[in-house]
């Protein structure tokens, strides 16, 4: 946890966790978008 910048070369222990957080959030956003569209398609 003493390292601060994930942009610096070399492994950073927080990098994997940060990428996992971002992927979960992105999946939620894309999933929500698809849900809205598909829900409307099913009504149409």
């Amino acid at each position, binding site marked *: *946890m*003493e*390292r*601060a*910048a*994930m*942009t610096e070369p070399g492994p950073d222990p*927080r990098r994997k*966790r*940060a990428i996992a*957080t*971002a992927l979960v*959030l*992105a999946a*939620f*956003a*894309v999933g*929500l*978008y698809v*849900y*809205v*569209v598909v829900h*409307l*398609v099913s*009504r*149409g």
Partner: protein
Amino acid sequence: MSTVAHAHDHAHGDVHEHHGPPHGLTRWLYTTNHKDIGTLYLTFACIMLFVGGTMAMMIRAELFEPGLQFFNPQFFNSLTTVHGLVMIFGAIMPAFVGFANWLVPMEIGAADMAFPRLNNWSFWLLVPAAILLVGSFLAPGGAIATGWTLYPPLSVQQGISMDMTILAIHMMGASSIMGSINIITTILNMRAPGMTLMKMPLFVWTWLITAYLLIAVMPVLAGAVTMLLFDRHFGTSFFSAAGGGDPTMFMHIFWFFGHPEVYIMILPGFGIISMIIPAFARKPLFGYASMVYATASIALLSFIVWGHHMFTVGMPAAGNLFFMYATILISVPTGVKIFNWISTMWRGSMTFETPMLFAVGFLCLFTIGGFSGLVLAIAPVDITLHNTYYVVAHFHYVLVSGALFAIIGGVYFWLPKWSGRMYNETLGKWHFWLSMIGFNLAFFPQHFLGLAGMPRRVPDYALQFAEWNMWSSIGAFLFGASQLLLVYNVVTTLRSGKPAQQKPWEGADSLEWTHLPTPVPYHTFETAPVVK
């Protein structure tokens, strides 16, 4: 609030002088530095504020007296529509993202945002989106004239400018979602050792909650406008009653996005005010934990109140009642925040420099906007006031004296830290008082106009509304012109302001004040501070 165990970072600026920013255009095009990107966002927001403000001046010029003076009704409606979209998506939201970029890493003790390249991409997506949106005035048929709500069937019938707007909304939505992912990831993963969630400055908390709101509602708006695009070009009839579709469905989906959007535009403002008031009251923020929970409560409640924008569409009485009570419920956590700010000031050693003036102005005027919101939340009252100028007065009290005053107060508050120079205090106070007088003169009479029945989105009106409209226009011109003082003050500060102290505000206690030199060096917290 957190305290810092050891301030070892003061010399960082000197140590890393050789590691400063590149020069020229490429610095701004390719930058991945959170401070540079924050500056880009704030500059962009300022430009869009004046673009949207020019449209507002044109609207008020047309409404200065009854009859058509300058514009035809179609163009007038385009002005009101694009004014709203530009101010929301171009000015207020990017300004708060600019604050987030500048402040979130510094206030949690991180070196930068978690994904600096994504950060750059988030900003540069905004520029073509803004060009599409404003440039749609030049498209055949002119810009869209649907109102910012884009209700069908009108939005299905508009010209190519609607497609430009839909593309712009998609791009701005993608930018917001990427920015939010970056902010959440940064806050959850990059806090300095000892910086627990409940030690974070309230500005960081409000942005964390706002970012979740953005991720939860932006895809919904994107879905709705995608369907609109399909109705326009691919023969579907999702929102067309003639084809078996349902225009009311669009309204439900739009306002499921639209109401949380209101809180997206105000919660970071709450955060800024929560930083300013303790600094100038020289007291810790009263009820820190309750402020966090109140912010989260407001965000959660914002998902179940969208129907209050639709009391007149013919929902069942039970539906109207539900949305009415849910909306009224929001006043509880909002009241908690207002009382906490007042309690923070109570018996504080207060001074009234420009940021504090804007914070107190925010407090007074936002409360008025909140109360008129309560009036509109009452379904039978709203049925009378719906689509009148009372609504226009209400949301301008919330969003101008709320969001914009917080942004301006924040600019004055952090400008010494960002630039290393002090602004002109006298000019700042002139700016505040002219804004305060101009704003109230512009928007308070609109309550009277609305109560008297003047509809919104009309370029002409009956003679009995003439006098208050004239005063409203005079106030708007004063308010608009007084914003030039802000630009002048900021530019002269950057060029020739007196050097600022390390901590010009005695009561400020977050990491950027206690732990970093003024101006902040290009790279900060490469070694994380330890917070106790």
